[in-house]
């Protein structure tokens, strides 16, 4: 069979064996949740509760702070203890700290919103917006914004991303096995919003059980096509997946909608389905807790705002001395310097490396082997941009298409000289962006 794919890419070890066959467990009820008002790209939320106030499960506690923003909800019932700045992923931000009363009382607003057949597209968009749904694959882009393209952009390709190309992570895989109906239901609502008859569900061929499961769930809907994509990193990257499924290239510097495409993650679909069927906003997600530094790797359903240290404790705690704590996968996830952080809507994985795994090798001189050029899925020349960046020649980095880098990290992975390619390209991108802002 001819598998759909893109040009370039790498084959890192999957490392999914630890958790791919483990059913999702429900996490213990957290006693305290710390809910960040900034959970996604875009403007942070504004708190709409006060210290001392009682809140219930599913109650809105933060109002969207702008167009590119999504509200946040309480994931437990209890009392607001503090609203303060705390460490969150990648910095600090205002958080609402809620102490549980152990009752898990559901808020009055949480009622079924209707049925896909009777709801209008506009109503579905409002439900998605009110439920605080964001892209759960990584960046957390507000789903309502993604599904409301400007009228001049005609969307005709919808792809559901079940590739899960990041090593170690199995949360989407388990979701597709355990709850495929919700994924399909969510997808159908999105098709309705976008006015599309057809959609793809793209799954890598190392998850054939998920392919079968999704095919079974979608068999009554001829417009939904489950496509098998080649197991290759970064297959789940938006632009690469659009190319694999439709052979369209998103123009350089543009968004998927400029190629008429929308890509969304399978977990996002499940969240939409829940928001419509039960009225429960996005307050929990599946998280893969894994790595050689974790005693009992697991897939756990965690409530938004559960502290990372607690999540790790539920997976048997650290095995030995942890060397590195990564939120997300090993290719694009973020290393943290403490586990005293709250989880959020995009916490798909908590990965812990041993000290030995955490140490990166020393870089050697570039031997111009060309491997980074061969595998770069953006077809740019990582070695050249990196060299310009390290010499402070950011104009040259820009001329060499630094801004087309999707930061997948394949170049740093493959480099036999262990050079910090992506790191230096990121540096160049940052300099280029700040210069562009200044000249505007």
């Amino acid at each position, binding site marked *: 069979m001819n598998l759909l794919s893109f040009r370039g890419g790498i084959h*890192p070890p999957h490392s999914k064996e630890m958790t791919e066959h483990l059913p999702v467990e429900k996490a213990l009820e957290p006693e305290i949740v710390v809910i960040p008002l900034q959970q996604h790209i875009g403007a942070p939320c504004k708190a709409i509760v006060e210290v001392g106030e009682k809140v219930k499960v599913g109650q809105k506690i933060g109002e969207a702070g702008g167009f590119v923003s999504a509200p946040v909800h309480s994931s437990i019932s209890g009392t607001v203890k503090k609203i303060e700045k705390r460490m969150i992923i990648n910095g600090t931000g205002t958080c609402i700290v809620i102490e549980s009363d152990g009752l898990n009382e559901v808020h009055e607003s949480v009622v079924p919103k209707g049925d896909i057949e009777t709801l209008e597209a506009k109503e579905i968009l409002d439900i998605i917006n009110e439920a605080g749904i964001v892209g759960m694959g990584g960046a957390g882009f507000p789903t309502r914004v993604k599904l409301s393209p400007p009228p001049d952009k005609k969307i005709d390709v919808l792809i559901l991303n079940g590739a899960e190309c990041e*090593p170690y992570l199995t949360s989407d895989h388990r979701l597709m096995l355990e709850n495929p109906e919700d994924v399909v239901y969510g997808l159908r609502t999105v098709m309705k919003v976008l006015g599309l008859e057809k959609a793809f569900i793209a799954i890598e061929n190392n998850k054939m059980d998920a392919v079968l499961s999704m095919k079974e769930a979608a068999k009554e809907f001829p417009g939904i096509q489950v496509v098998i994509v080649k197991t290759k990193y970064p297959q789940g990257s938006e*632009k690469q997946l659009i*190319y694999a499924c439709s052979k369209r*290239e*998103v*123009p*350089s510097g*543009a968004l998927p909608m400029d190629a008429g495409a929308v890509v969304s993650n399978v977990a996002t679909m499940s969240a939409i389905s829940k928001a419509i069927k039960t009225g429960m906003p996005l307050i929990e997600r599946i998280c893969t807790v894994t790595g050689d530094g974790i005693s009992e790797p697991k897939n756990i359903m965690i409530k938004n705002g559960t502290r990372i*240290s607690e999540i790790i404790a539920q997976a048997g705690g650290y095995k030995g*001395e*942890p060397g*590195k*704590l990564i939120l997300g996968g*090993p*290719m*694009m*996830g973020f*290393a*943290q*310097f*403490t*586990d*005293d952080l709250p989880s959020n809507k995009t916490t798909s994985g908590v*990965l812990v490396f041993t*000290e030995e795994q*955490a*140490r*990166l*090798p020393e870089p*050697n*001189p570039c*031997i*111009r*082997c*060309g*491997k980074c*050029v*061969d595998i770069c*899925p*953006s*077809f*740019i*020349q990582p*070695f*050249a941009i990196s060299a310009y960046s390290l010499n402070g020649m950011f104009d040259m980095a820009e001329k060499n*298409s630094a801004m*087309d880098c999707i930061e997948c*990290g*394949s170049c*740093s*992975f*493959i*480099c*036999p*000289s*262990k050079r910090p390619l*992506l*790191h230096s390209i*990121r540096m160049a991108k940052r300099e280029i962006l700040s210069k562009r802002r200044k000249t505007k």
Partner: protein
Amino acid sequence: MERKLIVTSSPHIRSKEATDKTMRDVVIALIPATLAGMYYFGFQTLIVVLLSVAAAMATEAVIQNIRKQAITVMDYSAAVTGLLLALNLPPEVPFWMPVVGSVFAIAIAKQAFGGLGHNFINPALAARVFLIASWPVEMTTWKFPVDAVTEATPLALIKGSRIVPESVSIFNLFIGRVGGCIGEVSALALLIGGIYLVYRGVISPRIPLAYMGTVAVLTLLYGGFDFNYMMFHLLAGGLVLGAIFMATDYVSSPMTAKGQIIYAVGCGLITVVIRLFGGYPGGVSFSILFMNVVTPLIDKYVKSNVFGGVKK
């Protein structure tokens, strides 16, 4: 929490590829050709090889010491240079010559330009050309395998002629029973090494195929579609050694696939021009060195279209 967690930017995993492993693969791939040289030309070729490799590694260590750099002689890169130089020398070369050549290769062609990754030409080839220019007699005094029929190298025999000399069979050229440099004679041994390198992902077959393909097409045309004549040019001289092991040197060849094809076709073109019309019998060393110098130009102008970019 008082844990010492390491924080770096992503990605957090690295492949097992490493410079020293790559270079070690090249050494392994050259073993069949080295053994073939010993088989045809005798034990003294081993001494040439060992002297050349030792001199290359020692020079690298001394210069890195002078430059107050980390000593990296165990990364096999100097060893590869020494080995390649030795395989490009006549079998009965005086023993001081591989030493002088290796010192030149490492000190002048490699370290003077900044060491590993900065040599703009292939150090072993630069040293070979330096030796040819300085000691032409020693560099063109050949020894022949005991059972070889003639006492001239194949390319010297065919110089200026469009007819394959009867004394040299294509089969002997293929297995290496002819006169020539230590490592260049046996196309068979070199091909085994080349297949190993491609299998291990060290080199792409692009450059060797485009290089040898160009030579094949041009000699086929020049020889009036004489298949034997074409095979003779493919197997004789340093073409197979050069195409598989010298032209593919990472540092001095282009980075993009398109650039590599241009570079390899250029190598093939110059090789044929020198062989057919030039003063020297063989042209592989000069053609690769010339294209090495053109490489930065190729890399400057030949770039792949970025994903989603405007198609040129």
